[in-house]
């Protein structure tokens, strides 16, 4: 009670002070208004004088001589007036021009007066309110404080906001939209708001994926100044295919350095910018097996359909850039090779595609996800630090795997679907991407364990590298059998 009394006293004191401050402002405004009113009166008198002045050529007046004396004199040149324009500037004008200037200034003064009167009114009302506040805090009898608790809406909004906090990458725009949506829903129907929240969670997940994808894309765009022709083609085709494949917000991209990608959905085209598309297509044909690709090059974007109908984007612009030189060396077969080679139906095709051995270059392809393979070389391996990059990518993959819905991205392992065919298609030593197992519709949980599996698989691939040079020729024959719609669309586009 004592504390409450103290608080009341404080409040009363505060209210009193508030009122006093407001009154001060009001008084200030009043004084200023007085000043401006005087000025306005002066100008009016001046205006009158100017109008009458040119009536006569000269006037007989008593001229002030110093502060105490006057002298009779004449006022001549009655039409010539030297006007002070301000800041020590003068202008000689006729009486009429001076009149115009005076009118101009009168307008300005009037504006100031209006503003001041408005502020004064505002503060007068505030003073009144402060008085009321005083009486309220002083005596709590007459007035009642009305409060309305808004519980659910706060919680719902907080939920959204919490989500935003958890996902700092989320776009503010989208967040705002969602928040508004939440609020609207809550306002309308609390019952529905629950369901909406649930769906919104999914949407949040998708939004996050989309954001990541876009970020990756931005990075890629920044990194790749000159995208290869193939890369562009493949990316465009892949993007188109993606759009065709999924109307819903499918594009969720995670730029995976190591190039891990898993495609859980058969339907969702696993589109990869550049040379990786072939692998994606193969995956699609195999009902979205997960293929692990290791990249030693820079970030790549792979579009992978995850279980939640999201797409992971995987692009290898950088690799494509680097590969461009090689492509030129090996002849410009990329476009054609892509068409031919993009008929990947088995993992073996991937290895075929991603091995540069055919061109006489013994450099094995580091990762399947690299830019499109040519006839001879699938993926030109430009990066040399495969191990290091692989670790990086793996970390990236793992991080992605822990994200909401983009688990497919991080799947390092490959489903067992085409293990028999995949075996011969082992990537060259430095490529860790393809461990030989393809995972179909591999959700997050299955993908995660693959991550650990991946590293041991690398050395095996290395060994087989030499052996696979020969078998690489065989896979292309199998390719024509099956054409994923993803590839088909791309073919059509091309």
């Amino acid at each position, binding site marked *: 009670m004592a504390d409450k009394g103290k608080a009341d006293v404080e409040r009363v004191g505060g209210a009193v002070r508030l009122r006093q401050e407001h009154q001060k402002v009001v008084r200030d405004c009043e004084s200023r208004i007085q000043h401006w009113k005087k000025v306005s009166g002066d100008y009016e008198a001046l205006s009158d004088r100017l109008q009458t002045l040119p009536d006569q050529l000269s006037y007989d007046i008593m001229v002030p001589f110093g502060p105490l004396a006057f002298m009779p004199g004449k006022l001549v040149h009655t039409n010539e007036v*030297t*006007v002070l*324009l*301000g*800041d*020590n*500037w*003068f*202008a*000689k*004008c*006729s009486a009429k*021009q001076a009149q*115009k*200037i005076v009118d*101009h200034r009168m307008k*300005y003064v009037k504006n100031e007066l209006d503003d001041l009167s408005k502020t004064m009114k505002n503060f007068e009302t505030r003073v009144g309110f402060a008085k009321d506040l005083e009486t309220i805090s002083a005596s709590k009898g007459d007035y009642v404080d009305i409060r309305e608790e808004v519980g659910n809406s706060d919680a719902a909004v907080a939920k959204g906001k919490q989500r935003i906090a958890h996902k700092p990458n989320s776009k503010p725009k989208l967040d705002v939209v969602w928040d508004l949506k939440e609020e609207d829903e809550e306002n309308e129907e609390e019952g529905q708001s629950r369901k909406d929240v649930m769906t919104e969670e999914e949407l949040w997940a998708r939004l996050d994926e989309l954001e990541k994808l876009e970020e990756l894309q931005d990075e890629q765009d920044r990194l790749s100044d000159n995208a290869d022709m193939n890369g562009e083609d493949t990316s465009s085709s892949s993007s188109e295919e993606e759009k065709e494949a999924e109307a819903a917000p499918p594009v969720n991209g995670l730029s995976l350095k190591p190039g891990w990608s898993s495609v859980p959905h058969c339907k969702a085209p696993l589109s990869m910018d550049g040379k990786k598309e072939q692998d994606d297509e193969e995956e699609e044909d195999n009902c979205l097996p997960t293929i692990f690709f290791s990249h030693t090059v820079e970030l790549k974007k792979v579009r992978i359909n995850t279980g939640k109908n999201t797409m992971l984007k995987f692009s290898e612009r950088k690799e494509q850039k680097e590969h461009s030189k090689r492509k030129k060396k090996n002849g410009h077969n990329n476009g054609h090779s892509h068409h031919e080679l993009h008929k990947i139906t088995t993992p073996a095709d991937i290895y075929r595609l991603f091995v540069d051995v055919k061109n006489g270059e013994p450099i094995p392809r580091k990762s399947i996800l690299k830019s499109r393979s040519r006839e001879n070389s699938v993926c030109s391996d430009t990066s040399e630090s495969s191990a290091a990059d692989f670790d990086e990518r793996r970390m990236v993959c793992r991080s992605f795997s822990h994200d909401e819905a983009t688990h497919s991205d991080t799947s390092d392992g490959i489903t067992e679907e085409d293990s028999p065919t995949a075996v011969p298609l082992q990537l060259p030593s430095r490529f860790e991407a393809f461990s030989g197992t393809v995972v179909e519709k591999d959700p997050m949980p299955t993908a995660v364990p693959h991550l650990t599996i991946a590293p041991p698989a690398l050395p095996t691939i290395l060994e087989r590298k030499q052996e696979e040079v020969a078998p690489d020729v065989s896979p292309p024959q199998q390719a024509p059998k099956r054409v994923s719609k993803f590839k088909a669309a791309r073919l059509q586009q091309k």
Partner: protein
Amino acid sequence: MAEAIQKKLKAELEKYTQMQKDVSKSMSARQKLETQLTENNIVKEELDLLNSSNTVYKLIGPVLVKQDLDEAKATVAKRLEYINGEIQRYESLLKEMEKKSEQHREVLTSLQQEFQKAQGLTAGKV
């Protein structure tokens, strides 16, 4: 212990008051500039209204010096720019000073707390 803190407190307080004075000085200078700005704006408008028939004078000391209308316009424009630049400079200066004074304020409050604690300790001891 308490005395040392007291001394520190005093020193900090002086610094803070000094900063406040500087801030207020800059503020008043800026206000002056603002009035000059409005005035020059008015002059500019008036000069635009005038035509070359009427002469323009500039008051330099006790002398009214005749000026060319165009020259006058140019001069006023230049002055306006100068004033704007000065205002910007003062604004940035003010911001800096505000930040510094904030820091000082924080230091002051912390010192005050220490002092109070020390006082409390000594009072408790006593």
